[in-house]
């Protein structure tokens, strides 16, 4: 067990849609510097849990803590400003803006006065955007409209946008979905680099078990909204309940 205070923690979290318990009494903790996986069959409540953590969904019962502070009733933009960033299962970039504009918009709004918001972006912000674009190997597309990018390139851009505010933790929702193996390797490498060199913490929803096994130190498994198992990737892959949930074996 980790003796540190969790960076992100959920205690007995419930989310209902009508009579359906999409998240059913889930406890979990992610510690600073970890890369943690969150897996489960389709409809097991993974994305709903992400929505609850980022406050896009309100929870019906339980508590959520970030950096030791309860965020159960904090608004999504405030959670983002506290240092929690995410990507989405269905990629959400601003298709009518360029790659650079997409990056800049992700660090535009920090409670500044209206007059400041009428000024162009700060040079430091633009430097950071260009640095991240290069880091994600998108520099040849800097001035291209996001709507013209391939699915994989948009996925990289979305990760870059999430990195722009320099968050403490990144929640990536199926970052490898529909992406070719070369880009998957780039994403894997960038996550590893950010974790090792900058101490960034990651919580990853994935169906790509190899991706999870290569990156994660711990994995949570959800099934029908409940936590089915928790452990190292090796333990999870040998867990009979997990195998049954995935393959019905």
């Amino acid at each position: 067990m980790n003796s540190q205070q969790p960076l992100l923690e959920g205690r007995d979290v419930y989310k209902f849609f009508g009579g359906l318990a999409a998240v059913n009494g889930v406890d979990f903790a992610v510690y600073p510097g970890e890369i943690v996986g969150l897996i489960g069959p389709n409809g097991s409540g993974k994305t709903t849990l992400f929505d609850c953590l980022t406050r896009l969904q309100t929870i019906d019962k339980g508590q959520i803590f970030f950096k030791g502070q309860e965020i159960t009733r904090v608004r999504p933009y405030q959670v983002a400003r506290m240092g929690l960033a995410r990507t989405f299962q269905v990629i959400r970039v601003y298709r009518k803006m360029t790659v650079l504009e997409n990056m800049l918009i992700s660090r535009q709004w920090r409670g500044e006065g209206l007059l400041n918001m009428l000024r162009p972006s700060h040079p430091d912000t633009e430097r950071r955007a260009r640095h991240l674009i290069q880091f994600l190997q998108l520099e040849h597309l800097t001035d291209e409209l996001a709507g013209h990018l391939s699915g994989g390139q948009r996925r990289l851009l979305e990760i870059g946008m999430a990195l722009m505010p320099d968050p403490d933790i990144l929640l990536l929702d199926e970052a490898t979905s529909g992406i070719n193996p070369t880009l998957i390797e780039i994403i894997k490498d960038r996550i590893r680099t950010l974790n090792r060199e900058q101490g960034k913490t990651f919580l990853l929803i994935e169906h790509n078990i190899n991706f999870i096994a290569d990156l994660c130190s711990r994995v949570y498994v959800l099934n029908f909204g409940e936590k089915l198992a928790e452990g190292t990737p090796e333990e999870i892959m040998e867990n009979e309940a997990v195998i049954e949930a995935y393959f019905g074996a």
Partner: protein
Amino acid sequence: MDQFLQALASGLLLGGFYAVMVLGFSIIWGVMGVINLAHGEFRMIGAYAAWALFRAFGLDPFASLVIILPVMFVVGYALQTILLNRVVERPHLMALLVTFGVSISLANLYKVIYSADPRSVPVSYNGSFELFGVTMPIVKTIIFFLALLIMGLLHTFLHHTRLGKSIRAAAQNKDAARIVGIEIHKVYAITAGICIALTAGAGAMLSPTQAIFPFMGPPFTLKAFTITALGGLGRIPGALLGGLLLGVTELMVATYVPGIGTNLGVAVSFVLLVVILIVRPQGLLGGLRPMEVE
């Protein structure tokens, strides 16, 4: 030929006004998904404000924009914060009913305050001049060029300021905007402030050319639908194109179809709307598809 040129010039001038008049309606719909049925009433308020300032201080309606625009920005910001932000993410019918209620309340409030008697702003330069044999009304020509200037400024604001880009981001994807720290309800309030100020400004600009009365709003709201269907949601060039098309169509019909006259402009507008929706249900420029401020 002279008659055609005259109708074309008058239609273009009218279209310029329509373009600036519809911007607020189109952007609120585009950014928030709210169809503001009180749109015409804010134009009515602008016209009354110009009349009141003209009557009390002799202030020219165009000069009164310096007062009307900031005051109506605050009104729009407050309306959004107090009322519309509470329904903006609920089913569309809620916002429709709320803005319908605002529309009725404002029209009747102004009737109580000012009575139903029509008012006018008799500026000294309400004449016309000749240009290549075409008669150009001075006020409408000023409105046309001011409309172009306003649209240019708004385009620059939306594309080159962080605030404008935040509005565009919120229009394209509000969850993605929220998750990067954009305070979406504040963006909505600023958007409503800008749009309602623009609408009232349009009302003030047109005050020298039309009778001002409390129930003058609804025909403009209806025309705003047609122009939006023509030009698209939240699109500034689209608003200009839509406005010009409607303006020219109205004037051509009034000129060449016997017995119609300009008073049936709303009918022309509706026929045009029905034709567009039958031929191209997504709008002429595809602009009734999901909202993206360009």
